[in-house]
């Protein structure tokens, strides 16, 4: 069953076309990867799903519901979690406050319960709960961004370049965290330029270039494609 269907999506920034009729599907329980170099349109697609950029054509269906006209905050409350490119943690907030920031729509008890759940996946959160996020390393900030995105127990998690700028040891740790989320049943749509570690985590992948999907298929197919060499 499809949880997210993106149909012939167009995104334009002034005269520049960032997405040119892109179609992507994510099914319940699977992890799907968008790979491509800078400017391929990966982040534009993610931002269109979150509602942070406007679309100029096509449809985004989440659980069969057209997201057109639904503001970004309301999309989050429908069950779309989002970890942005470059982490973008709230720098002046503590680790605990960062995680709780996404739980405004929940009761206090539910928010605390979800924070405890996030701590069970990311032990770092409990250790650094009171520390300002701007004092964390890049890898630690990525953990906080991930925890913030999953603390509402989203039906779909959007991960935009979770390995960006991280040392190999942190890529392994983030990969472990993503696997743990998968074990707990989280459906994930992620983007990444570093295809080698990302392809180990996903069920299917779309190769993007110039705002279009050039190839799609399961991991084995994509890996075997000559195209994959560009990104590996």
């Amino acid at each position, binding site marked *: 069953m499809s949880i997210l269907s993106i149909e012939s999506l167009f995104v334009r920034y002034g005269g520049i076309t960032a997405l040119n009729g892109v179609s992507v599907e994510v099914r319940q329980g699977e992890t799907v990867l968008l790979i491509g170099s800078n400017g391929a349109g990966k982040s534009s697609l993610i931002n269109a799903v979150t509602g942070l950029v406007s679309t100029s054509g096509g449809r985004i269906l989440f659980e069969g519901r057209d997201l057109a006209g639904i503001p970004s905050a309301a999309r*989050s409350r429908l069950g779309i979690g989002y970890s942005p490119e470059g982490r973008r943690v709230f720098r002046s907030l503590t680790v605990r406050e*960062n995680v709780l*920031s996404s739980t*405004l729509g929940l009761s206090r008890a539910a928010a605390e319960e979800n924070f405890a759940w996030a701590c069970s996946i990311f032990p770092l959160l409990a250790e650094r709960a009171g520390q300002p996020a701007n004092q964390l390393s890049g890898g630690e900030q990525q953990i906080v961004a991930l925890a913030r995105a999953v603390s509402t127990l989203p039906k779909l998690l959007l991960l935009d370049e979770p390995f960006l700028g991280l040392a190999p040891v942190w890529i392994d740790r983030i990969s472990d965290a993503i696997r743990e989320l998968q074990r707990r049943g989280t459906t994930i749509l992620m983007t990444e330029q570093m295809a080698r570690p990302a392809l180990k985590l996903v069920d299917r992948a779309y190769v993007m270039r110039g705002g279009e999907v050039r190839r799609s298929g399961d991991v084995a197919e994509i890996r075997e494609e000559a195209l994959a060499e560009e990104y590996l």
Partner: protein
Amino acid sequence: MVTFVSAGVIGLSMGAQYALIAIGFTLIFGILGVVNFAHGGFYVLGGYLAFTLSHVLGVPFVAAIVLATIATAAIGYVVEIVLVEKYVVDHLATMLITLGFYQILITAIVVFYGAEPMDFSFPITGSLRSGGIFVPYSNLIVFVVCGAAIAAVYWLVYRTRYGIALRAMADDGPVARSQGIPPATMFPMAFAIATGLAGLTGALVTPMLALDPHVGEGVLLKAFVVVILGGMGSIPGAMLAAFIVGLTEAYASVYLGGSKGALVLFVLVLVILLVRPQGIFGTEARKA
């Protein structure tokens, strides 16, 4: 020593007033990115509402202050939704809109009340005299009420999930929206809190100082100084800077003469900004 202590208490009282005004001003800037030129107008409005309630309608002074605060907050809420919300991303437009609203508000006050100062006085007179220390009761009351309001705002912003959402919105608006924090709720609420604080300060302070349609202009200027000194958008910065300004004014007035207070203050602010252009708690400064 006695003079030093008396001036210190008055300086703290002034600092508390400035803090309330500046916290609201910086809250609106930090969360909405709007420089609210109407902020001084809400101070004036609070004063006139308290005057009308207490001196015209006979409402007890304390109730008049509470009602004036609630009314200015409610008006601020409506102003944000009706006038500011649609143009919130356009800094120039919001500056012009708030400036225009200020002019309309002040003109309306002149039409209804006239341009002359109102005969609005603090109901409690007299001074605390102890060991040669001389402090008017009005200053002490204003200090206590403003201090309580500052503590309440601090609790709201730093100890509640609503405050977390407000600070997240100030930190990174788009990401905050993507995490389920709705600007349609947060923006008017932040505006209402800020204008309510300005209204409270006006209701409390104008009977002690003066109430005429133009007292808000000096207040806006002082809020600018405090917020820039503290760091634009920083609530702790605004609090600290407000007390620096209040104490500087008080001590300079006592020891150097009234007219030199403002001079000393602006020299001090200039020196601090030369050393730290982003303000005391600011994080960024634009370089040439």
